[in-house]
């Protein structure tokens, strides 16, 4: 029972890790970023490349992946997304195009394969990264055996969630982000540099996806297509939790992870995922504002 709950918790942690970035870009900025899954993919590839070319450890890959994907996110915001604020569904369509472009960038070795150069670690094929030795085993806590890698994911997710909460609710930048979320025009009138804050927020959300990618590369094969299924799950979690509510996202990721864990322990993974979708649909139909939603003034 406890081990099933633990597996559910770790599924929820991965969901949360992916959703945190979306909770910020979608929940706060009103951008449906379909390329978010590709940010996860880029984070995973950062880990692959660092392992091959520099042979630095897993822990070092986390900040590097954060910086790399944040940079990509920043560029996307400046080039495309900033022209689309207020056009929710258009952001979705345009970023779907970007997602295709990012996948192709990896598949074609950043375009170099067209001139016959191949970069090891990129390209069409699958990549595999071994989890580091110190996370390979099991840890026994209070009589329950815990897979160390899953445990680390839960821990890291908790740290990042806390960091995000502090950033949003306890720093001057966070106040500006929340002001823009409530009313961008008013925020601009109060002297907030809306463009700059939006670009930074988008970059931060993308960076979080990069970290999620590093963690996922430890237990999944890395491929250019790996991001696509992730993004949909992330959206559903954010909407279920309630737009603009970090707490809601945490709760809904946890609940959905547990449902997934428990249902798959009695039937199959596929049925478990179907059950999660069914629950999500019901929640959105009956509580369209999500489990937790802030009241707009």
């Amino acid at each position, binding site marked *: 029972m406890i081990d099933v709950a633990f597996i559910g918790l770790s599924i929820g942690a991965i969901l949360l890790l992916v959703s945190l970035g979306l909770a910020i870009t979608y929940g706060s900025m009103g951008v*449906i970023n*379909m390329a978010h899954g590709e940010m996860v993919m880029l984070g995973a590839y950062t880990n692959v490349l660092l392992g091959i070319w520099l042979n630095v450890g897993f822990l070092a890959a986390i900040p590097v992946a954060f910086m790399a994907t944040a940079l990509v996110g920043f560029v996307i915001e400046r080039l*495309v997304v900033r*022209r*689309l604020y207020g*056009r*929710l*569904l*258009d952001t*979705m*369509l*345009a970023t*779907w*195009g*970007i*997602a*295709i*472009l990012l*996948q*192709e960038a990896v598949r*074609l070795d950043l375009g170099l*394969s*067209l001139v016959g150069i191949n970069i090891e670690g990129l390209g069409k094929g699958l990549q595999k990264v071994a989890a580091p030795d110190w996370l390979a085993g099991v840890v026994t806590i209070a009589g329950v055996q815990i897979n160390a890698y899953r445990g680390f994911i839960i821990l890291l997710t908790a740290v990042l969630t806390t960091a995000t909460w502090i950033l949003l609710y306890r720093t001057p930048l966070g106040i500006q982000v929340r002001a823009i979320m409530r009313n961008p025009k008013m925020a601009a009138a109060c002297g907030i540099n809306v463009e700059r804050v939006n670009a930074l927020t988008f970059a931060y959300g993308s960076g979080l996806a990069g970290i999620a990618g590093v963690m996922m590369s430890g237990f999944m094969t890395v491929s250019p297509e790996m991001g*696509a299924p992730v993004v*949909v799950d992330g*959206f*559903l979690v954010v*909407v279920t939790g309630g737009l603009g509510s970090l707490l809601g996202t945490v709760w809904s990721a946890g609940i959905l992870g547990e449902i997934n864990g428990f249902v798959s322990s009695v039937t*199959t993974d*596929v*049925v478990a*995922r*179907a059950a999660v*979708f*069914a629950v*999500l*649909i019901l929640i*959105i*139909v*009956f509580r*369209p504002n999500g489990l937790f939603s802030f009241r707009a003034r």
Partner: protein
Amino acid sequence: MALKRGHLDLIIYGAFVAVILVAPLWLDDFWVNRLSKYLVYGMLGIAISLSWGYAGILNLGQGLFFGAGAYMLAMSLKLASPTSLQSSDTPVPDFMLWNSEPGAVANLCCINRVSFLWIPFQHQWFGLIAGVALPSLIAGLLGTVLFRRRLAGAFVSIITLAFVLMIRLLVIEEQPLTNGFNGLTDLALLTIGNFQFDPYDRATYYLVAVSLSLALIGARLLVGTRAGLILQGIRDDQARARCLGFNVPAFQTLFFSVSAAIAGLAGMLYVVVAQFASPTFLDISFSITMVIWAAVGGRSSLLGACIGAIVINMIEATASETAALLDLWKVIIGLIFVLAVLFLPRGIAGLAGSVGDRLFAMWSRGRGQAELPSGAAQPAE
């Protein structure tokens, strides 16, 4: 009688129908088959435009209706196929035989626990009717629940998205019923009367082209009716329409179902042309891609969305076969998606509409007629 802007639209619709009807005269059999596939996609464009452009309901699960139509007809065609007549005198799909438990009776009634659902599909007409009826029914039920609860915008999109994902998982999981990942292949040809529709035959092309023309003209007439105008009123301001006493959910559900029926019809035609049905029809990427076809063509124009779907697929096919572009065609498609959203928010039809307005204004001035108000306010057709 002076030429009106609305007449110009009719002429354009007529020209499009004429073009697709005479196109096979210049094409070889291979391209005829291919073009019929793209016309099927064009029909999906119409379905998207009807629900998104006219009803304001962005359905990200249109693939569900397409897939439902495709599977319904494919099940009938599967039972009519010689591969289903191997073991006994009653048809049983080959995949059920391969996976049957030892000693199971090779009959649809009881070869596995769900095979009885296939029994009515022995009649091809059941498949043909169910291919439109099932999508409309699902859309009717889904629409009733969603629109009664006054859900709108992104919420409807996300629910339809989750719904199609859920059904996709179940279709793959229910292997005894649906043949899972592999889908339904080795189908018989659609036979009506004594005539067989061979996918590489011109008759099949005309079946698709005529269906597309009827769907296009039918949808165009439908949005011009009183119900269609009320629907557009609802799209523009739901609260106002409700306060004026209109039954908002009923109108939305009606058009949602019509859109689903067109998508279901498209799914059936796809099975006739491509000879298979598979769970890839339920993939999220397919549903989103068809929305982008409509966006590139022009979401608020039925014909624009239809042409957008056809044109993008032709570009895709050409690019993926040109050696120099072999690796780049997906990049081209991605770029088209991004650039179209950024710089052509009303799509090709919007662009054509503004050009048409300008030409029309010039023409009327030349004839000494008063300039008509610009078409910018009305949706470009």
